[in-house]
């Protein structure tokens, strides 16, 4: 009796990261695949629940030569963070006072914030993005505010941070919703002329930043390009496109690849 019926098309597995050709027991998942899925889900759940080690990040920022400050959103715990996205978009009152004081160090072309968001593991990649980006922009004369570390922040909290600091652009790095194969995916969002009430259409996003996704170095190049374009043109959001990306992604070349390289 065959406990597992393998799939004869398992060579197709090399063509995609999707879970294809898993084989079956009857019509159900073989035990090895059942466990593999369970492990991926466990890692994703752990990524959501893992506490954000703020002190470690602050030390890493300092080692990279970046000055920083810690802000608080209106959220105090993980459960509230998940239930109340509106609280995660607002700063605490004491953080507002703190920013008023920091603003006096300005003016700033750019302010940056880091939050654990939905994956504190993703913040492990934050330094690899921010440190080289910081060097590039400083060499071009950008005035950059101290890096704000904001536990339990949502993307739109960048509006209030940027508004208090009077920055031209506000950049936020935060942990994205973990996928099964990507528990450590970092997202980067920026908005020009940050003000409370900006919509998602006003933001640009560079997503899936992680070694196995968009590598940090590639994210730095993209952000460097986009931030300069945003500053020069005075815009952000749907009207600001990554023209380099469009040129590289011509569907006709993909069509050709499908025909030529099955």
């Amino acid at each position, binding site marked *: 009796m065959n406990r597992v*019926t393998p799939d004869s*098309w398992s060579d*197709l597995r090399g063509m995609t990261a999707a879970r294809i050709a898993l084989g*079956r027991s009857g*019509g159900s*998942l073989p035990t090895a695949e059942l466990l593999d899925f369970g492990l991926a889900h466990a890692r994703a759940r752990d990524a*959501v629940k893992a506490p954000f080690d703020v002190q470690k990040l602050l030390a890493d920022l300092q080692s990279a030569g970046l000055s920083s400050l810690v802000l608080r959103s209106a959220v105090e715990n993980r459960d509230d963070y998940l239930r109340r996205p509106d609280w995660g978009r607002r700063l605490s009152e004491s953080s507002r006072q703190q920013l008023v004081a920091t603003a006096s160090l300005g003016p700033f072309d750019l302010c940056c914030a880091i939050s654990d968001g939905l994956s504190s593991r993703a913040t492990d990649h934050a330094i690899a993005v921010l440190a080289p980006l910081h060097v590039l922009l400083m060499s071009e004369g950008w005035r950059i505010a101290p890096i704000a570390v904001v536990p339990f922040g949502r993307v739109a909290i960048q509006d209030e941070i940027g508004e208090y600091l009077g920055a031209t652009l506000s950049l936020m790095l935060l942990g994205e919703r973990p996928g099964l194969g990507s528990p450590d995916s970092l997202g980067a969002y920026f908005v020009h002329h940050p003000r409370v009430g900006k919509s998602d259409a006003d933001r640009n996003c560079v997503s899936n930043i992680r070694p196995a996704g968009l590598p940090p170095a590639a994210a730095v190049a993209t952000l460097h390009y986009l931030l300069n374009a945003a500053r020069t043109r005075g815009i952000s959001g749907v009207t600001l496109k990554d023209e380099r990306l469009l040129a590289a992604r011509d569907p006709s070349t993909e069509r050709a*690849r499908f*025909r030529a390289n099955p």
Partner: protein
Amino acid sequence: MNPSQQGTIVRESISGRGPPQCWQRRYRVCKFIMPQYRHSFGVRSFVFDDLKTLLAKAGPRRSGDELAGVAADSDEERMAARYALADVPLRTFLEDPVIPYEQDEVTRLICETHSRAAFQPVASLTVGQFREWLLSYDTDAVQLAGVAPGLTPEMVAAVSKLMRNQDLILVARKCQVTSRFRNTLGLPGRMAVRIQPNHPTDDPVAIAASILDGLCYGCGDAVIGINPATDNVDNTILLIRLIGDLIDRYEIPTQSCVLAHVTTSLRAMNQGAPVDLVFQSIAGTEAANTSFGVNLSLLAESQAAALSLKRGTVGDNVMYFETGQGSCLSAGAHHGVDQQTLEARAYAVARHFRPLLVNTVVGFIGPEYLYDGKQIIRAGLEDHFCAKLLGVPMGCDVCYTNHSEADQDDMDTLLSLLGMAGCNYIMGVPGADDIMLNYQSTSFHDIHFLRQSLGLRPAPEFEDWLLRNGIMNQDLQLQPVARGHRLLQSPHDRH
């Protein structure tokens, strides 16, 4: 408890373009005096200011309603709302729309397409009596289909709030809503599967591999439908042709869809693309639909364009809609109405366009709207019930995200209950892991759990194809697909 004060001031039409005559007569209206609803337990009295408040407070505990600030403050208040709601006459929902006629084209659609004749069998009932009517032995599929055009989303949402999960399953099971394009979906004892072969870069080779995997697992009768990572016309046409070539080559009795924005599909059709189904995400308010970049006339335009292609062979249901509780609140367009009632209103939009497929993407939106497995399971059953009662060919994306308190066991539970409830179709995602949208749904394997445990068969035309191609046998068991099988000669032997 009856509503204690029904306003009786006739509202004059200010613009001259007021409610149509049938509503002017009935909508005597008046919310200058708010009709209040009350219920007392002994000395404790609960007052609900209007119908939408009553509906919201009568719903089961739900994180999205708490986020919106419309949920009951206590379990006792929730039950008081249910007592009061049970005594509300169904007619009240025609007289007192939860979102004003003047402000919302979805309300106008609901009103203007309401059939008074179809409503007659239940016109004298309260919400509580309507529940009993639905559960009665005498109420069968024919009667339920007959009454559907007389029901409004608010009526079915209201009765669902009084119903237990088993009621939602039993009544939905009695409803039969079939739809046709190249096969017949929604027949009793059958459940179809959408192959969802998404890929983060829309890589055609990777997508084709996932499609073949699904076909070899006997899936794909609902649709082979790709959520594109990049929503533009060229990419959409490329993917439509990719699926279309497979369907033609293997003569598969199914349909293709690229789930791009409706305007993208329109442009693709204008460029001569072989579009089977037009997809759009829709919601239950005009403002939420505006945030999606659509309105009723745009949907009508796209439906007409798809119909003109005449690509269906056994029917002309050409629309595919996805919905989900919380989308209106997420768009800041909820008008203080609870998310489940708003979701039911989306089905009024859907049914107007005679869709082939409609499914709620029930757990996708996240824990701020549906917190955990319990809330997702309940919402999935409500959505399926409300849609079926309104006459919508309902399926379900049984799913969750990794920041929800849910796992694959919860999905198995909802999947089983929807199998019992006669759900038209589910999703088939390779290994239940969507590597583009980063959430977990149901897999090609999952449908075989239902085929084996509940005897649910594929769509008849597709079942014939599976049998002819040796993919599945008469006992609904998968057959080994050998390397030389003609399905597996693609894409290797192409060109």
